[in-house]
């Protein structure tokens, strides 16, 4: 396989991924029919409200779902099937070729170990570095992610760092072995805007420099808009809209995407204006409505919506929307934009 062939081949290819979880209310389909592929150097965003299955998707790529979870479909990394891979082999990939930045910087680090040890762990494991070598590399990594005075602080413990600093440390950890695929699960939700900015800068730099592929998960449309090339909007475990970021923001096709966009308070939208809300509440995974998962809350719902899960409709270049009423919704969208 030549270099050119390799870079053309998708790095990660997900086909019809489904995840069934055992919840306290019985089994629930947390992810359904999710497909995408990602080449080297590409970035993909995953948006959606809390509980829509973003993290579960990430976990299934990492092979870290609970034992009781049932995964269907296929996940291929460089053409090799990952679904059903034995744990020992998966361990060789995790932290090495695929790595992940977790949602909560406050709890993602082990409070009892020095940050140096924690960052060095993947190096020592996958690259079998010696302790001294790993330490040197760790300091370099911490310096790279902008942790001040890393040589002195490698031996400090997580609680001695601020939230932003901790998030940088988890990033250093995820990047230690220069993975091919980085999954960043809401890396900035817990942080305030100034620190959020710094972290996103940092990740973007690294993606550019090293040609990694990245999946960025967030429920903040602004973060997605600024940081990824392509995006997918999830609702109730299914992708309801996907496409290049610019394209999606220009012409939002799914009522849910539109609702999400409208509901956010916008800077400069003065007092007295009302926010447009999506009526109803996010359904429980265990009792999703039949058909389109959004049908219960959709202003455009018709009986056909409840009949079956709508197919993905192509509404623009590589832009798909899982809605049978795009004719109406996308017409209305024009009005919404000007509001």
């Amino acid at each position: 396989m030549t270099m050119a062939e390799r870079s053309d081949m998708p790095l990660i290819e997900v086909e019809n991924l489904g995840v069934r979880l055992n919840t306290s209310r019985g089994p629930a389909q947390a992810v359904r029919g999710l497909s995408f592929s990602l080449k080297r150097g590409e970035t993909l965003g995953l948006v959606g409200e809390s509980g829509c299955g973003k993290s579960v998707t990430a976990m299934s790529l990492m092979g870290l779902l609970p034992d009781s979870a049932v995964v269907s479909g296929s996940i291929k990394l460089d053409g090799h099937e990952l679904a059903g891979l034995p744990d020992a082999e998966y361990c060789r990939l995790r932290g090495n070729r695929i790595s992940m930045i977790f949602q909560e910087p406050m709890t993602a680090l082990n409070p009892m170990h020095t940050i140096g040890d924690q960052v060095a762990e993947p190096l020592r494991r996958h690259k079998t570095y010696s302790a001294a070598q790993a330490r040197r590399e760790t300091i370099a990594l911490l310096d790279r992610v902008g942790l001040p005075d890393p040589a002195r602080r490698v031996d400090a413990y997580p609680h001695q760092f601020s939230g932003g600093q901790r998030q940088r440390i988890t990033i250093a950890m995820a990047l230690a072995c220069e993975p091919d695929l980085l999954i960043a699960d809401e890396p900035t939700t817990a942080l305030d805007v100034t620190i959020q900015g710094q972290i996103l800068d940092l990740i973007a730099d690294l993606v550019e420099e090293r040609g990694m592929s990245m999946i960025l998960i967030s429920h903040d449309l602004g973060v997605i808009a600024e940081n990824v090339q392509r995006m997918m909007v999830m609702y109730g475990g299914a992708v309801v809209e996907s496409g290049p970021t610019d394209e999606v923001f220009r012409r939002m096709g799914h009522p849910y995407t539109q609702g999400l966009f409208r509901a956010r308070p916008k800077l400069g939208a003065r007092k007295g204006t009302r926010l447009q809300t999506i009526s109803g509440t996010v359904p429980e995974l265990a009792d999703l409505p039949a058909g389109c998962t959004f049908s219960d809350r959709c202003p455009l719902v018709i009986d056909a919506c409840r009949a079956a899960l709508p197919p993905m409709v192509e509404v623009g270049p590589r832009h798909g929307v899982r809605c049978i009423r795009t004719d109406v919704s996308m017409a209305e969208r024009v009005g919404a934009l000007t509001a």
Partner: protein
Amino acid sequence: MSVFVLRRLVTLLATLVGASLIIFLVLDALPGNAAQMLMGADASPDAVRALTIKLGLDQPLAVRYLQWIKGLLSGDLGNSYVYGTPVASLIGERLLLTVPLAIMAMAITVTLALSAGIYTAANHNKLGDVGVMSLTQIGIALPNFWFAILLVLLFSVRLQWLSAGGFAGWEDGIWLGFKSLLLPAISLAVVQAAILARVTRSAVLEVLREDFVRTARAKGLGRREVLWSHVLRNAMIPVMTVMGLQFANLLAGTIVIENVFYLPGLGRLIFQSIANRDLIVVRNCVMLLATMVVIVNFVVDVLYAFIDPRIKVHDL
């Protein structure tokens, strides 16, 4: 010196002063006295009176209390009424048994409990977990003195590997002393280990649910590696709390096992001394126990700070 330590020391002293008063008064309320006990049933009343005066038991309460405290402060614990020997050496001899026994029992407890606890947590809800946990259920339910006799039946009477009781002392070699404490240590440990194993298991399971475990897994660590390198130390805090309580209990609460194995431990000394109304021994023993338990608790608190970098000694 840290303010915390100072504060702890002050309260510790206050506790001990209060303790000494309570101990003294409670013991003084015991009916009967040492002179009567020493003289036996057929002694004449004036012989008993003579001994009472000789032992100084006729002095007023406050005088005796102050004498005791004065003695404590100057390191002189006085002489046992019964044995006539210095109380300090009497207690010292017993400590040579009680402390090693407590340590041995604790070592066995910790070994058993941690391995069982970790094993079951790692195999949560699997057959091994259920099996070992059922065993610990039974372990908790065993009265330890009863279990002790069963051990004796097996190892001393049937197999004759170990002696049925008694303490060989440390003079004739560590091994002999060790051997004679083995069965008592096991019978003390089994029940405790069952409790500690359960605590360990739930602590480990609790930590396994934490986010950083997932982080470690995401770095490519296998389940077992995560358990050993990340989970255990975090699970140690609740485990240590229980361990501290158990160790304190071993120092003070082994009378029953000492009885079964006729060991000259602190517990039996107290038991016998109360029966003999050798109150000077009892007071000092109980005082020592109180001090030791308070110190063990203190040590456990300091150990927390060693295990968990987030805790500094001063914010305990």
